[in-house]
């Protein structure tokens, strides 16, 4: 059989930061899977709440102030992360490094505030199903914030060393997308844990 040259790939681009890169699709897959996990946790919460006589058992919903501040901080960190991504899109390595570092610091602050908030809870996960699901969802999200802080610290170190360029930035793209996911996942949890009992209970 004759074999004919059909397409020449010699001059095709080898490094893609955008939707062409399989890794971009890979992180989308991870986010989809994790979103399904988030959804399963939300459904579990609602299922337990729907079958409970009093929800929460103490009758009072957890305080709103600190979780709302955390929500604001997480959304702010999304913006600094977005700015970092835009920076490297324009080849601005300094803006990338500063943006990622700022986001890491903001998220670390969230971790400190969350720790204080959880420590102040007057119920444990062993007390009742409400305590179990609240602590589990909180722990789930806490672990995710921790892992995104650790991962982005690695990205920040590489950014300060000048590793990333406009073409070679798939690591940044992956990290920022995961960052958005973790922050935005807090929105349904926040509404469910803090607003849910207020709207549902009364």
């Amino acid at each position: 059989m004759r074999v004919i040259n059909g397409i020449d790939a010699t001059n095709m681009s080898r490094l893609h930061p955008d939707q062409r890169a399989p890794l971009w699709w890979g992180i989308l897959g991870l986010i989809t899977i994790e979103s399904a996990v988030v959804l399963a946790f939300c459904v579990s919460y609602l299922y337990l709440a729907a079958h409970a006589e009093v929800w929460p058992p103490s009758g009072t919903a957890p305080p709103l102030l600190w979780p709302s501040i955390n929500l604001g901080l997480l959304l702010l960190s999304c913006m600094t992360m977005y700015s970092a991504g835009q920076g490297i899109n324009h080849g601005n390595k300094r803006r990338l490094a500063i943006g990622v570092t700022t986001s890491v610091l903001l998220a670390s602050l969230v971790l400190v505030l969350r720790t204080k908030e959880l420590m102040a809870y007057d119920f444990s996960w062993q007390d009742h199903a409400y305590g179990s699901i609240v602590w589990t969802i909180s722990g789930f999200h806490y672990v995710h914030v921790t892992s995104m802080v650790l991962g982005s610290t690695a990205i920040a170190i590489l950014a300060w060393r000048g590793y990333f360029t406009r073409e070679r930035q798939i690591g940044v793209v992956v990290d920022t997308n995961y960052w958005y996911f973790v922050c935005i996942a807090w929105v349904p949890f926040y509404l469910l844990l803090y607003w849910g009992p207020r709207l549902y209970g009364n």
Partner: protein
Amino acid sequence: MTHQSSRVQERHDSPQEIEQLTRTWHSPRGFPGWFTHVNQRMIGRRFIITGFIFFLLAGVLGLLIRTQLAGPEQHFLGPELYNQFFTMHGTVMMFFFAIPVMEGFAIYVVPLMVGTRDMAFPRLNAFGYYIYLIGGIVLFGSLLVGMAPDAGWFNYVPLAGKEYSPGYGVDIWTTMITFIEVSALTAAVELIVTILRLRAPGMSLNRMPPFVWAALVMSFMIVFAMPAVIVSSTLLILDRLVDTQFFLVESGGQPLLWQHLFWFFGHPEVYIILVPALGMISTIIITFTGRPIFGYTALVLSVVSIGFVSFGLWVHHMFTTGLPQLGMSFFTAASVTIAIPSGVQIFCWIASLWGAKIRFATPMLWVLGFFAIFVIGGLTGVMIASIPFDTQVHDTFFLVAHFHYVLIGGAVFPLMGALYYWWPKFTGRLMSEAGGKWSFWLAFIGFNITFFPMHQLGLEGMPRRVYTYTAEMGWGDLNSLSTLGSFVLAAGFMVTLINAVWSLYRGQPAGENPWNAPTLEWATASPPPAYNYRHIPIVESRWPLWDWQCRGERSVVTGLSHQQREIVITSVLDADPVGVQILPSPTIWPFIAAVAASSGFIGLIFHPVFFVMGFFLVFFALVGWFWPRRPWKEEA
């Protein structure tokens, strides 16, 4: 970028280039080298072999169960051991055989079928395999030390709770199931991205072979179904490990939450096993009728809709739990609905077979066996979709008969057909046809003798999961018959095992395309070289090999480097080439990451602190995995 170059240029390869390409895609040999392999065919082969080893082990457990039930009031297995055996039989068959072996076939065959050199994330592939291997060894090892789970393969609470299942058995089940779902999920993402982005130029979605469609649908189902079982088993781990109260009624927990989450996964799960088998059947029918399949579009749409509808069926496993009437009616309707796409498939296959010159080679026999068995399983399925009937036979052997008919008939028979079909591609040699026919007939007859009597036993009221029965019940004869059949069935599978080993040494050499099949995997040597294709092919139709035979020429992609592992990326819908991806070389990091993750999970059986340890170990392993090595690659 045009498909047709203006000037037709014939391609001549130099031996130096081929040698260099071989070196670039080479996998290191030897003991430490084994842990660094990333090539898709290496990993796929490991999944398939490991999966069949678990099939053998779980099959032996099934035989032991049958031996115990052969006559009334036997004491071959005690009740404790019997509980462990049926739990392990189900768990291993579902989680450690069926899913991984289907994924293994997809990992091996799909990249060849879409005409590329490897998968999108070769290291992730390797990582997934080690997770599966370690998880499987730990779970099966628990049986050898007498700590195996014994609460059934769907592990219902409160039986699986701390109070009724003390000891480590259920902990091993929950942690290892969560753990190996990670492996299923990595393979699913891997397959989705490979299928959507790495198809050969010109293989638009409507030219994809049916098996690739099936693998795509399977992968999407895994992505949306598995998280539910991960969440449910995580909640159970927490209940057992740190005393949360999710499933304990006295503190506001809900045992039914387990059933909802588990079956939200568990029902799609059986279709996750079935869907790739449907793809295998279409593939085999096309090749052995020697003509295009009837109703390609209808077939693809039915596979896709089976994927969707399967997510609306989970409650039919819970008809006896006292749910609201309206909800139950909805799920009855959905359960019956799935018969529509399944029916469309069957009719398309019948139309394809009608009037065709069918070659009755072994793969085709297994497919015809599938028809007979699966139709019976489907009929009993329609019966138990009706609530009054289901209430009557719930937890009896009727159910056991039904799901063995759909699972063995629907998945294992096509799988055996696919094994015979692709074996020459895997090994370069054909299995013996005589051996294949013996194997098929023994398995087919043995299967029916084993499982058909169970329908009757179930209608007579014999409950499942009880280790023995008294002589007065009058179930002895049918049970002895069933046990006899199970040994015939096992003999059938043994013949294939012997046939496979025999063929490695004595089998007839296969050549590139022994069956005259139309899909791309048959366009390269058997077994394929490390780089799969000397040139990435360009596709102009659904049946590229048949077209090339007519035209006497084919076109290919040129200009990929021989120095590094390069593959072509194409667009999602039309598969137009858009770029080149450089893939990683063999590396030990996936193995290190898998060991780090498993130390966390195995530790979790005993103490929560191992979660923290595993978390940080995995983090450091991933940093090591992804940290850029100097010299940093520049835009080529």
